């Protein structure tokens, strides 16, 4: 457990030091999005990696958080913080209610049901034009503020978002190392066995689904208040798939993996801009290569690559002597 605390503190230090390295540049802006995506990947990983329940509708919860916050602050002039809390409660309750019937399904059927859920939410964003502004979006969402500090630039937003991200990481680490975390993993391995052991699988699955939705909704609110503009296109099926990719590339059932996956998938397109028109092809190829050669995700893959390199150099060294 002590090692966990050291690892977490190390992450906190890294997060605090990044702004010193990247200053006001646009990379700081990208890092803000890395933070939001890390929260979303983390939320999905709790569900997918730990409990073994797939969701292809995470972008829907993310979007709901963003839209509830956006609508409450623009149309009803509510304080952004209150809007954010209402959004989180609303989405959690919704996920809780929907979770009961949906999580009875397994495997492909669960994937289908969550996919449908995501698409329905997306359609509502598009069609409820009077409230959501329809496909051309909702603008004029206010920034968050605390005691006179308005979060209106990249540096402030960076600390705001990563503050939330670090808290979510801390809570998730705590959760997965607790009795509940062990119960979740037992459901992942065999739901029947878990039940026999006295784990209330049905309730637990719904609870983790609701928690995952709640974290996603908070990320959505943060997104809305930092971007000050939202449009349905950001919350479509493609984004749900991107989140699943982040979790898988990063490493299933690894909290730090989610952060790595989110960072990689958010920053890679920016780094590949040099390839100009071919960036999408390079991006796709990299993803294929990574899943082929690092099936356990980056968290397991990177140490494996290092140890292999070490082994190799040792062998070569031996040859020379």
């Amino acid at each position, binding site marked *: 457990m002590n090692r966990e605390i050291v690892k977490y503190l190390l992450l906190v230090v890294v997060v605090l030091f990044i702004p010193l390295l990247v200053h006001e540049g646009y*990379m700081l*802006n990208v890092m803000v*999005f890395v933070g939001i995506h890390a929260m979303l990947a983390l939320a999905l990983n709790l569900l997918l990696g730990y409990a073994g329940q797939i969701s292809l509708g995470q972008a829907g919860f993310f979007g709901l958080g963003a839209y509830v916050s956006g609508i409450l602050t623009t149309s009803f002039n509510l304080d952004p913080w209150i809007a954010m809390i209402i959004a989180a409660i609303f989405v959690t309750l919704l996920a809780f209610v929907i979770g009961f019937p949906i999580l009875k399904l397994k495997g492909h059927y669960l994937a289908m049901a969550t996919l449908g859920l995501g698409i329905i939410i997306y359609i509502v964003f598009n069609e409820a*034009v009077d409230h959501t502004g329809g*496909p*051309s979006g909702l603008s004029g969402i206010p920034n968050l503020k605390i005691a006179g500090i308005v979060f209106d630039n990249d540096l402030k937003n960076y600390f705001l978002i990563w503050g939330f991200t670090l808290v979510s990481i801390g809570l998730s680490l705590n959760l997965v190392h607790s009795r509940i975390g062990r119960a979740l993993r037992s459901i992942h391995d065999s739901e029947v066995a878990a039940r026999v052991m006295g784990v209330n699988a049905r309730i637990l699955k719904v609870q983790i689904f609701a928690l995952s939705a709640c974290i996603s909704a908070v990320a959505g609110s943060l997104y809305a208040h930092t971007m*000050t503009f*939202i*449009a349905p296109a950001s919350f479509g099926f493609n984004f749900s798939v991107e989140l699943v990719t982040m979790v898988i590339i990063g490493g299933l059932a690894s909290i730090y993996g989610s952060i790595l996956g989110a960072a990689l998938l958010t920053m890679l397109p*920016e780094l590949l801009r040099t390839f100009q028109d071919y960036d999408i092809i390079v991006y796709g190829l990299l993803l294929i290569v990574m899943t082929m050669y690092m099936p356990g995700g980056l968290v397991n893959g990177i140490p494996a690559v290092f140890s292999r390199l070490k082994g190799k150099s040792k062998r070569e060294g031996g040859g020379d002597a």
Partner: protein
Amino acid sequence: MKRFSIRVLLAALLSIFANNVFAAPAAIKIGALFSVTGPPSFLGEPERNSAKMVVEEINAKGGIKGRKLELVVYDTGGDATKAVQAANRLIKEDKVVAIIGPSTTGESMAVLPVAEKEGIPLISCAAGSKITDPVKKWVFKTAQNDGLAVSKIYEYLNRKKISRVAILTVSDGFGSSGREQLKANAAKFGIKIVVDDTYGPKDTDMTSQLTKIRGSQAQAVICWGTNPGPAVIAKNVKQLGIKLPLIMSHGVSSKKFIELAGDAADGIILPSGRVIVSDVLPSSDKQKKSLQSFVKDYQNHYKVEGDHFGGHAWDAVMLIKGAIERGGDSPTAIRDQLEKTRGFAGIGGVFSFSPSDHAGLNKDAFVLVEIRNKDWALVK
């Protein structure tokens, strides 16, 4: 061998260094955000092509005041998040003096707070009137407002003494903006919307909506969408034997629509920019020269016909060129000069900006055309 390659490397480095020191005055950097991929690629691709083409031409003629232009294009994939990231990159990393795009209204609304905050002029290529209404200090646009196209259609209906219409709009940004404008302007022209229906961007059959329209009091059908939906509607109208006049939006004013709709396109009326009818315009038309050079160049460069979407980017580059020629090349000077642009005859229309108008066009930016024998004809 090793030594040789190091020497080559050194030589290469030296030449790069030398180039940087002794080169002509640095290029003026202009940023561009287009959705070259993703659903709005039908906008982004011609826009990117046109912008690249016109920048090349300006440079071939010696640039602006002896300085070359450099265009930095980023693809947004139609996603607001990516557009904002790319805009930040253009401003902070590439240090551009002005930005062209994005292609869609949604992305433009997402990017404009960035441009406003950083003080970089932005010329959007999207149509939504809310981009420049209310006026924002740093934001301009070249695409014609949807409201202008609606006025053009309603004037025509008034002339034909048609007062009851059915509207069928696509449920995306383009369609919802059109629907809003159609509803907002109807009363002013004494027009009543008796059926107000929508269809999905990917729908492949609209007979149910059209059957509803057939059973109504409507005297004409106005359809608002971009390819391929309207072509399906044109075909469905023919299949169902609906005899009402069918009016489309400027979203289909490209040859692609006629190809898709085939015989069903005949007799359809739509408002359009002048690009597609550049050959048949009277020579007194102010835009004729710009239009013909754009159409010819685009054909030579890309072997396909230029459309008005590409024209939005062409106009934006030329507006920036004019602004830099008259003033300096700092973002503030460009903004101030853009606002002073009067009577610039581009592709989208004759632009005249002012402190209270950053859209710059009036309804003469559109002409009404009818599709006859798979070609465009001007409606007088």
